[in-house]
């Protein structure tokens, strides 16, 4: 992996998709607006011009059937990628994903496979309100037969997408709108990021911070702020949520003895609950805690929305408290370009 290029998360997805479409004729991309001029944040832009309309096409608003159609096409030997503008829309696809995609292999004792990729963007920017902001990764983690990945870096975005396409199983590929502009070094060639392996993004000794998708960036920023007050926070990006790299998290937990899981969604029965439950069962003498969306729908007005989501500040404050620090401490204002520069309209 010699040739590295600095590109953003959206471009990395585009590149992974493009290259794998070149590589494999059976890959196709469909979803609302995937062939319009915006091309889902550029990730599918003009693919129809290169690969033809049968391999990149717009669809009617029919999330339920279009999921089943992807499953059927996968049974027929193709590798469909279904792109959703908002993860909230997956609620219309639950029957197909859970009752069919996750089960066809099992029910046929291994004859069927469903190499379907469902890309879904978590909608946060501002003003998205209760129905355009939700994250449901934990719904899919709950169900055997489906894999879930939530890459944070451009490198992982490209590699996970390629691995997802090549995987025999249905994969939910979780994107986050505030990640598309994230820049990083990405190999030019085709490569896979292996599922089931997490990454220690920052090493530390005092506390472990585990994020998911966009909240990984909250954890990174919090750890930088914590560093300034002498707290060494280890930051873990699980990357793959199902299967999940419990070992890596346990190892870090056994080292730091303190774990704060910052979910990108609600807490009850969520990813954070799962990670903490695993630690509670398999490790001893840990201080554990969790943060995530507040226990309400997402409010539309900006002031409430800002409080609804975890932030680098709130993560740093909680971590500092867990480390015995002053609970009145507040980090200097931490800049979040992607949030502050977002201008809408949507």
């Amino acid at each position, binding site marked *: 992996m010699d040739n590295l290029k600095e590109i953003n998360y959206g471009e990395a997805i585009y590149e992974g998709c493009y290259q794998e479409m070149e590589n494999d004729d059976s890959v196709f991309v469909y979803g609302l607006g995937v062939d319009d001029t915006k091309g889902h944040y550029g990730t599918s832009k003009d693919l129809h011009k290169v690969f033809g309309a049968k391999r990149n096409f717009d669809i009617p*608003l029919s999330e339920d059937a279009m999921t089943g159609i992807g499953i059927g096409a996968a049974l027929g030997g193709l590798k469909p990628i279904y792109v959703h503008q908002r993860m909230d829309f997956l609620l219309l696809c639950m029957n197909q994903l859970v009752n069919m995609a996750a089960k066809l292999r099992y029910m046929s004792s291994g004859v069927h496979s469903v190499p379907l990729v469902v890309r879904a963007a978590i909608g946060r920017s501002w003003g998205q309100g209760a*129905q355009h902001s939700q994250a449901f990764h934990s719904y899919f983690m709950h169900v055997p037969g489906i894999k879930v990945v939530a890459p944070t870096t451009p490198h992982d975005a490209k590699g996970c997408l390629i691995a997802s396409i090549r995987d025999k199983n249905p994969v939910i590929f979780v994107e986050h709108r505030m990640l598309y502009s994230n820049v990083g070094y990405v190999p030019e060639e085709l490569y896979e990021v292996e599922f089931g392996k997490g990454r220690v993004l920052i090493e530390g000794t005092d506390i472990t911070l585990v994020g998911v998708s966009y909240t990984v960036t909250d954890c990174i920023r919090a750890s930088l702020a914590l560093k300034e007050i002498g707290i060494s926070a280890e930051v873990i990006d699980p990357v793959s949520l199902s299967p999940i790299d419990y070992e890596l998290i346990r190892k870090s937990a056994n080292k730091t003895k303190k774990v704060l899981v910052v979910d990108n969604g609600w807490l009850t029965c969520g990813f954070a609950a799962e990670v903490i439950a695993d630690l509670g069962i398999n490790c001893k003498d840990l201080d554990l805690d969790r943060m995530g969306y*507040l226990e309400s729908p997402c409010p539309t007005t900006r*002031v*409430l929305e800002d409080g*609804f989501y975890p932030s680098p500040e709130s993560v740093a404050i909680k971590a500092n408290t867990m480390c015995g620090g002053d609970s009145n401490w507040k980090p200097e204002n931490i800049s979040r370009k992607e949030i502050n520069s977002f201008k809408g309209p949507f």
Partner: protein
Amino acid sequence: MKKFDVKKAYSLFYLIRKSEEKIIELYDTDKIKSPVHLSIGQEPVAVGVSLALDKKDIIFSNYRGHAHYLAREGNLKEMWAELYGKVAGSSRGKAGSMHLSDWSVNFMTTSAIVATAVPEAVGYAYSQKYQNNEGVVICYHGDGAVDEGVYWESINFASLHQLPILFVCENNKYAIYTHQDKRMLGDSIVSRANSFGLKSFRVDGIRTEDFFNAANDSINNIKNNSGPILLECMTSRWRDHVGPGEDRHINFRSDKELNDAITNDDLKNLESLINKEDVVTIQKDIDSQINDAIKYSEDSSFPGTKEITDNVYG
């Protein structure tokens, strides 16, 4: 049966148009804390339908709901404050543009998930019949909504139970940038709905009065137990799908298509039917109402963060 009231029509139309234009004007200031889906170009439908309604009738709408709300004579100040995300808003800023609701005018709810409030409208109609209540339910939806299976399930139930509901399909031909032809074979919303046992009519008018007439007849029929009705109202969206901008640069429709619609603007036509003095009075009155509403919104405060978890449960 109601008669078409030109002055009232003009006044509501002007109110909607000016409000939307004000949103465009202000949007860059970032004072409006919400994505907006403007109704400019589609006012004739909302105004025509609303003039046919009684107070007791009940509205279900969608994220493109400003026109529906204002034509219903909802509270202008509260709507503006809601767009500003302030406590004086109809939902204290929690709803924003996409989820307007106001029970004082029976404006029930607006969903940002396409077609998702359609069965709610049908269920409300069931409750009207159950309780022997008078009001007819109006269910506004776009042409994209009929792509969703839940739409046909809902229609099926409404016709099976002969519920008092009028479906108003605002067919602007596009779901975002996707033309109806790329979403269904044939131009067949009316025939599809008819086959489900729903009496369905297309209203091809560009005139507010045409939509009024169709709605007026329909509401009257529904009140006389005709069962549910669908009006497919052909209309045109002048601005971008979402946000204050235009969308000509996206090249998904011809300039001519849009220009024709703009040339036929019924606001000008209605204005021509009223005497000049009245026009001036109406405009002045509405302009100042809008300015008041904006001032009211600016003066109102933002909710405190402890409100975030209020009203999750009752």
